[in-house]
């Protein structure tokens, strides 16, 4: 019984949150990896793209709520999501037209494009601040829990409860749908195939008559969808704050690099690796240990490997280890 209790505590504080967080990171990393595969640069504006998409979602959600529209037990934000994806796609296509296209034409070095993406990041960040400000917002509504701790305790008779929030389930379900749709698109459709061909070998793809501008445009639209979905899911699960989204850049890049830049499967695996390590390393295992080793007096201290404030250090350490030992990532991404 004690072992079961330990398991429940572990699931409640590590397994469930890390799975949700991993799905959010995976969606973010997919966007980074797609841009890298097709446009061949690391997009530093990705975090702020997520913030922009989430901001539009929040604004539309507020408008819907004011008009009295809700989505039953689901968050209203899910209704607003398609609108936000559309607006974000327009923004990204506009940015590409006004900023990135020039550098593609002159075949600028990747590092110049990275720097340009920093400029774009500034501007997007400013747009978000103009739109919604710097405060923290929660915008989840509808049912709060799928299983709450008390019902779980009553159902199983265990001492510990397991709470599964509806946002966590929504995150996972949405992520699975989005990823399945993305892979179907990349593997089965003509446009998806041309994107993969373009990513593998640009010159060969051009020779076989693939229109590069069309591939790039489709990439930006998909990125907008991925970034907005990732941002909204993260915001529903935790909360929305512009600066947090900028800070998400590091775990997202770490996920993409760990999996191998340019490899979609790698981005998903990387997202979960980073999320699980981050949460496991910063979780205080005291209660789990107390259940597993009941004879001894409770262990001193929190049994926490690292304080929560060092969660960046976890993504960073994994990133450095991968860079040292396997620079192409676990799933053999592109090297340059």
């Amino acid at each position, binding site marked *: 019984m004690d072992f079961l209790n330990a398991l429940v505590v572990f699931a409640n504080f590590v397994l469930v949150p890390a799975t949700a967080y991993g799905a959010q990171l995976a969606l973010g990393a997919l966007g980074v990896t797609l841009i890298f595969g097709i446009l061949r640069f690391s997009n530093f504006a990705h975090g702020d793209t997520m913030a922009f998409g989430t901001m539009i979602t929040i604004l539309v959600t507020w408008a819907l709520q004011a008009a009295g529209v809700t989505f039953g037990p689901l968050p209203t934000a899910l209704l607003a999501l398609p609108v936000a994806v559309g607006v974000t796609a327009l923004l990204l296509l506009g940015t590409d037209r006004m900023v990135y296209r020039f550098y593609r034409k002159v075949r600028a*070095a990747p590092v110049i494009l990275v720097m340009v993406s*920093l400029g774009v990041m500034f501007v997007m960040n400013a747009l978000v601040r103009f739109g919604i400000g710097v405060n923290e917002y929660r915008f989840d509504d509808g049912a709060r829990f799928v299983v709450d701790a008390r019902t779980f305790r009553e159902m199983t008779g265990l001492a510990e409860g397991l709470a599964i929030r509806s946002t966590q389930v929504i995150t996972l379900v949405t992520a699975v749908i989005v990823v399945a749709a993305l892979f179907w698109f990349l593997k089965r459709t003509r446009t998806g195939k041309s994107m993969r061909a373009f990513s593998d070998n640009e010159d060969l793809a051009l020779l076989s008559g693939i229109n590069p501008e069309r591939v790039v445009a489709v990439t930006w639209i998909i990125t907008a969808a991925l970034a907005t979905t990732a941002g909204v899911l993260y915001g529903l699960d935790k909360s929305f704050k512009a600066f947090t989204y900028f800070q998400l850049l*590091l775990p997202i890049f770490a996920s993409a690099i760990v999996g191998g830049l340019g490899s979609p499967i790698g981005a998903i695996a990387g997202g979960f690796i980073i999320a699980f390590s981050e949460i496991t390393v910063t979780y205080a295992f005291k209660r789990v240990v107390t259940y597993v080793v009941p004879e001894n007096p409770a262990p001193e201290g929190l049994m926490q490997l690292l304080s929560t404030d*060092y969660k*960046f250090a976890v993504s960073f350490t994994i990133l450095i280890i991968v860079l040292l030992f396997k620079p192409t990532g676990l799933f053999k991404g592109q090297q340059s």
Partner: protein
Amino acid sequence: MTINMRNVALFALVGVLFIITGFLQSWNVMLTILNMGLISAILALGVNMQWGYAGLFNIGIMGFVALGGLAAVLVSMPPVHDAWAAGGLQIILGLVLGALTITAAVLFWKRAPAGTLRGLGVTAILIVGFFLFRSVFDPGVAAVEAVNSASTGYLGGLGLPILLAWPAGGLLAAGVAWLIGKTALGLRSDYLAIATLGIAEIIIAVLKNEDWLSRGVKNVVSLPRPVPYEVDLQRSEAFVSRVTGWGFDPVAASGITVKLAYAGLFLVVLLLLVWLAEMALRSPWGRMMRAIRDNEVAAAAMGKNVTKRHLQIFVIGCAVCGIAGAMMTTLDSQLTPGTYQPLRFTFLIWVMVIVGGSGNNWGAVLGGFLVWWLWVMVEPIGLWLMGALTSGLPDGALRTHLLDSAAHMRLLTMGLVLLLVLRFSPRGLIPER
């Protein structure tokens, strides 16, 4: 050195901007902006070495600036003897154990034959070492932080003159830069960017959380100053009689004197660094650097060790940022880890380098002054502009919202300036020769 009239005119123009600020606002304000402008120029110089000479993309400047600030505390504050007695040696022992663990793991990796066993061995060393480190380190930290935590609660510094902190900050930043460069250089160019972005966040997290080191978010205040205090000047008979003789108000004059003294110190450092940087750039070493930047493959074929040279310039550039960081903390005479923002300490410096002219030391210096002045002035100008634009609107939610968002004009301006300069004038105001 041939003197280019256009460059002189550009510097004169920036000078005029500062003088106008002096007349319109006050000389005190102008000197405050100028002092930070001098520090910004040094930062831009450091980044220009990395980007302009070698094409290295470092976006962790904030971290190296903060390390310089840490050095200022560690060098200049008086040691807290009670804290040292309580757990200082234990903390040091813990850190030594941690370092030994990593060294042991690295040595084991290098010596042992490749295979699964090697990986397991390194993992075992790291895990055992980590718990050993924590078991020694944690009680020491708890003991030190318990010592009079309202006013000290940290180990304090060495109690040396704060001017020594400037080179010390450079050394500290150089050490960390070496570790980062060793791992991330020689890979894709964007990996360095990501690694430096990460290390900057981690350095700030360490400064915020390790209270035993520099009091974390409780801040270390009233660091010793290399220049006299205003109150002492106002009490000094000689000073008061002299400035009143010249027809100045002693209170205002004391503030200006102190700021001028700082400006003098900073100017000496800036000129020294510019001189060194110019000498380096003209030397065979500088030519080699630019050759590597322009064509790595060709330079490598000529027998140049590209990765080693990159590491060298990366460390030097970060050291300059560390020096500037120590100077900034000296100027503020306090270390406040909560105020380090990537926007202000990393990306703004990049805008300075790009606008000024990457690859040209004088360009970086000019960019430092000009962009810093803009950064300070954009907010009032934005507020005024927004006020003028919305004056036709009725007072309401929309107008308040627009007026509030004027504060974010800085971001938009800096982003647009960066994009426009990169697009239309990528060589900057003073292009590379």
